[in-house]
């Protein structure tokens, strides 16, 4: 991700666009990556409501994919996921392995 130089930022760093933080990809902070195992998912959406980074998509009320551009790999979704029959629907895996 390329950061803006001083000539490219607005004068006084005024925010002219709502939600422009989306252009800043925090996914690069991640040391661990969550992986969703759909067959163990019970669609409770706990992962979605508890994610601090709005990094889990929900479409039509259904659990969707990860937005890895923003996920910081905290692991809250994996810890809170109840999964099915004792099997988690989210596991954390070390990045770059």
């Amino acid at each position, binding site marked *: 991700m390329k950061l*803006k130089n001083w000539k490219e*930022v*607005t004068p006084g*760093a*005024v*925010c*002219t*666009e*709502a*939600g*422009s*933080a*989306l*252009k*800043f*990809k*925090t996914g690069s*902070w*991640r040391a661990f990556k969550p992986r969703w195992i759909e067959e163990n998912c019970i669609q*409770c*959406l*706990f992962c*979605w*409501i*508890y*994610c*601090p*980074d*709005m*990094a889990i998509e*929900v479409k*039509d*009320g259904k659990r969707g994919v990860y*937005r890895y*551009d*923003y*996920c*910081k*790999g*905290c*692991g*809250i979704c*994996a*810890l*809170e996921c109840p999964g099915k029959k004792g099997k988690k629907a989210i596991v*954390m895996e070390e990045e770059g392995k």
Partner: protein
Amino acid sequence: MATGITLKELSKKEELLTGGHRMCSGCGAPIIVKMVLLASDYPIIAANATGCLEVSTCISDYTAWKIPWIHQSLSGAMERGHDMIYICYDNGAYMNTGIQRSSATPFGADTTTCPAGSVIPGKTQQRKNLTKIMAAHDIPYAAQASPSHWMDLVKKVKKALDIKGPKFMNVLSPCNRGWRSRTDDAIMLSRLGVETCYWPLYEIEDGVTKVTFKPREKKPLADFLKPQGRFKHMFAPENEWMLKRAQEMVDKEWGSLLKAEAK
């Protein structure tokens, strides 16, 4: 009163706080902000005093907010009776500037300005009870919530937004940097805060106190303290008195809350 709130329904609403903000990985605060924004059916203007949330959601010309957002202050606004809801995300120290002790820091906690060592065993005073202080302004609504109990939180925000006048909510906000805990345990810790009655869920509406969640079994406070490095020294044999004292403080507050409710 809001009924039939489901995550499925809430998930259809627009996200008003985006990803790409620069709060720490696993921070409790953006979770709380997300829940609050989802609870509202009204257009919102956020007013934010300086803290982590302010400086990490608006950096240079990036903003993670999709709603108007202004800088704001508290007791005076309550006294003047502005029609607003003030939500404090309470992480129990000046976390943004490097984990300095604040009046809201709990008893015993190790911070950079009350470090536990040979001179003092962490903070020696008890935590200021901000929720009660705000309720003492005789405002129409004051409440305490926790992100672990998302439905309780969302209901309280909805209720508060429908009341005219100044409202206050205090929400427990785990901070893994300051609490010396893991990045994945924000929800687990906030749940333990509630289950140990360290952070009771209650509301005071027009002077009437109601405890909105009573744990089936009140867990020992140590369950909440143990996973947090800031309380590590309290588990040393010579500091047993601290655990006892901290437990007594929690028992006292819980007791007086139940009494206030019974009135």
